[in-house]
């Protein structure tokens, strides 16, 4: 691959996320402005004088033209300044900085569970296609697609916290403070959070593996005298992992959405609790900060997923993305919950 080719490929990888980032942040920021929730109405109350309102609006920069407000906000955001809460006057970045590690550590643990359990289930099901394990995996996966996300969490709480009293039903200890305790508190929410992703990965991996195992190159590998294990892990998985990785990328927003529910259920002090609190108070800067972080996290994970895809499949490097798009579509269809 030539240097120019690489550069163009990298540009393609970068230009889309940048455009998406701008569109997503702009539209969410515009929504915040359209909503009409302003500090004057929420903080000062009904007795405020016109002068007080004007002063407060000026203080929050709300008397500028909208586009100026947006770019001010975005510019500050990129330097780590997300404004201050209408209510507490605590910088939004500080609140999010405290809450974000909770979600990050939880999401990483959940992602690990999803990949390990979903991956193992998908591979085993594909290898024993039509067997009892395959049918069980299919049944569990389609079952999980109909289960409200919080029901898994409730079941886990009932089983492990209420009945057996093995794990706490809620609360949190930071990883940096005590990893052991962190795990005790993070285990149930992570499992609850991972269920949907694990099912999606298992299903997609099974499908693409079953397809890949019928490819000629699998026969070709056998004809070269490669063992089944080597063929599976060095060749088939590499080609079949693409769609599963794409599904993983699609799962990340869902994981964050699920984290909101998990945070509430397990009383975790994460970004979602912050946003939920801010939402009920119509504290616009905090909501926008939480949205920005969410968008950023999703985009960064998508870039990572695409970079991995780019590495493992030469087709992606050539730029024939039709196959990948098709897969994305299926996975979106399957994972709309």
């Amino acid at each position, binding site marked *: 691959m030539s240097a120019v080719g690489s550069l163009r490929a990298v540009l393609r990888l970068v230009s*889309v996320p940048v*455009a*998406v*980032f701008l*569109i*997503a942040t702009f*539209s*969410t920021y515009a929504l915040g402005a359209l*909503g009409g*929730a302003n500090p004057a109405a929420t903080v000062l109350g009904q007795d405020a004088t016109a002068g007080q309102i004007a002063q407060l609006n000026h203080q929050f920069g709300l008397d500028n033209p909208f586009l100026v407000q947006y770019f001010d906000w975005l510019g500050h955001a990129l330097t780590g300044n997300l404004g201050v809460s209408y209510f507490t006057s605590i910088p939004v970045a500080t609140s999010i900085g405290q809450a974000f590690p909770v979600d990050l550590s939880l999401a990483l643990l959940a992602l690990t569970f999803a990949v390990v359990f979903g991956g193992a289930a998908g591979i085993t099901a594909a290898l024993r296609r039509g067997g009892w394990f395959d049918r069980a995996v299919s049944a569990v996966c*389609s079952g999980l*697609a*109909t289960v*409200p*996300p*919080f*029901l898994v969490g*409730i079941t886990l*709480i009932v089983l492990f916290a*209420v*009945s057996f009293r093995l794990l706490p*039903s809620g609360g949190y200890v930071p990883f940096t403070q005590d990893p052991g305790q962190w795990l005790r508190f993070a285990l149930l929410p992570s499992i609850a959070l991972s269920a949907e992703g694990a099912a999606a990965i298992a299903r997609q991996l099974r499908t693409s593996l079953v397809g890949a195992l019928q490819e*000629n*190159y699998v*026969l*070709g590998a056998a*004809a*070269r*005298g*490669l*063992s089944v294990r*080597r063929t599976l892990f*060095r*060749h088939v998985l*590499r080609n079949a992992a693409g769609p599963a990785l794409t599904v993983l990328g699609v799962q990340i*927003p*869902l994981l*964050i*959405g699920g984290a*909101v*529910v998990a945070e509430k*259920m397990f009383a975790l002090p994460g970004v979602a609790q912050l946003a939920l609190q801010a*939402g*009920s*108070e*119509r504290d*616009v800067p905090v*909501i926008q900060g*939480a*949205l920005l972080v*969410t968008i950023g996290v999703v985009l960064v994970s998508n870039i990572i997923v695409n970079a991995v895809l780019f590495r*493992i499949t*030469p*087709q992606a490097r050539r730029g024939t993305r039709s196959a990948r*798009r*098709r897969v994305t*579509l299926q996975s*979106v*269809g399957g994972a*709309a919950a």
Partner: protein
Amino acid sequence: MSARRPGSLRRALRLTSARIALGIILLIVVLAFFGGVLAPQNPLAQNTNVVLQGPSFHHWLGTDYLGRDVLSRLMAGTGRSVAGALEAVGIGLLLGVLPGLASLWLGRTYEWISLRIVDAFMTLPYVVFAVAVTGFFGNSLIAAMTAVGVLISPLYFRVTRAAALGLTRTQYVEAAELFGSSRRRVLRTHLWSKILPTLAVTTAQALASALLIVSSLAFLGLGVEPPLPTWGELLSSDLDYLAQQPWAPLFPGLLIMLIAGALNAFADAIRDTGTAQIVNVDPAEDASSESSEDDETGAEDIGIAPVAQPVLRVEDLRVTVNGGGTEAVHGVSFEVGRGEIVGLVGESGSGKSLTCRAVTGLLAPGCALSSGTVELLGDDDTPPIKLTDIDRTAWNKVRGPRIGIVFQDPASYLNPSIPVGKQLVETIRVHDKTLSRAAAKQRSIDLFTSVGLRDAETVYRQYPHELSGGMAQRVLIAIAISGEPDLLIADEATSALDVLVQAEVLDLLRGLVRDRGLALLLVTHDLAVVAELCDRVLVCDRGRIVEQGPAARVVAAPTRPQTRRLLEAALVWQPGFDGVDTELVGAQP
């Protein structure tokens, strides 16, 4: 999705699962409209004497923390829960379908921008976005569901776009345009019939998802306007009293699962019955076509001809297909000797490929060796192996070091995402674990050079799709001989190549046999190739070898009608043969 034939819904309803699903859906519809009326008790009536009770005669599903009847609240809550989901899906449908279609026809700039907007929506998690929107606009069911609807629209956008994209590329649209239909007319007649079933499936799935999202949001207190009940709100209050009533969330949870499951099952039924005609890929199709019954002419097998210095000996090989149901190879026996090129010829379906697969232990699932022996005979430094007796692990030491195999459509037999050189290195190092990576690389380049690949260093780094057919076949041959096998099996190895390249590859094979003393079993349907290359030929027909002998004799004076037929097919390939439209004949596989 075959909507051109009407009644995909009716077809779907032939499935029991679809009927059950539809029944559940109808039940929910009834509950949505009349749940409040049908409820046995007032869903809002509190009774502090019966707080948090279990199921009883009076309260079938127990009572909640205010002593309200859970069953009545579930029934009364159906309407709001379903309405919320419908609103979200409706908004998604409205915002998604037309822009999705437009993205295909309004030019590349619009396409790029609309795709980025869709991408942008897809970065937003439903729940987070709904939290934000209710924060911005105030907490109401409408606001929450509008937020969800906006995020469902990318699903419709993509599904519509994909369905239409598939359509614009199908031949009947091209044909319709060719025959003078205007573009708009083509769209009107074909597009909607193609897209509507897709939209039906998507809508069923989206409704299921939306119900789950509505309940998730209600669980968080979004879109909930107490005291009016919804399913999610019921769940949320159950959570607070989990210690007293751990099984309480079960009822609303099960109800949501039931309806979501029914919607998904319904979607599956529509999709499956719609695509059933298309998805008819039977991997054993090729094999089963070989199981045709014997006919009366020339079906008896002829005996084995002794060969000097045999490398491969096949005796009375029988192969069954269709899971043992049908015998497709009826006792084939032959030998291939060192330095000998043997052609195994026959029409497709004659059993030659099955024989070849059985010899290499690569029979497809459903096919099995029912009797007979296959033996690799050794020489001074290699022991004989009875291939019919060995297990899977032992085969890995046979394929490669003892038997090399080359296929038709060579590029497809290589891993598409690994450079071909690396695949050769891998093969070499799997069979010779003492060899260093660098030494294996050097050997690979030497091998590539020896099979006539110019610029072997470049080929080494190339991916299979970057090679021409002839180059890919040379690569496959290099891999096949890398283990220095005694026997090379070429399964239609030159059939897909054009005539000049075919001649070059045949030359290469001839040279390999001469220089390395290989035994070559050439499986082909093309007697011209046999005449060109082979020492001896075995003619296969309906699972038996019906004629064998020196290639020159068989080609010049065939004794069997099957051989004559093959010969006639081969002759039309010769240049200068008159009277046959070569273009038409060339279309045969």
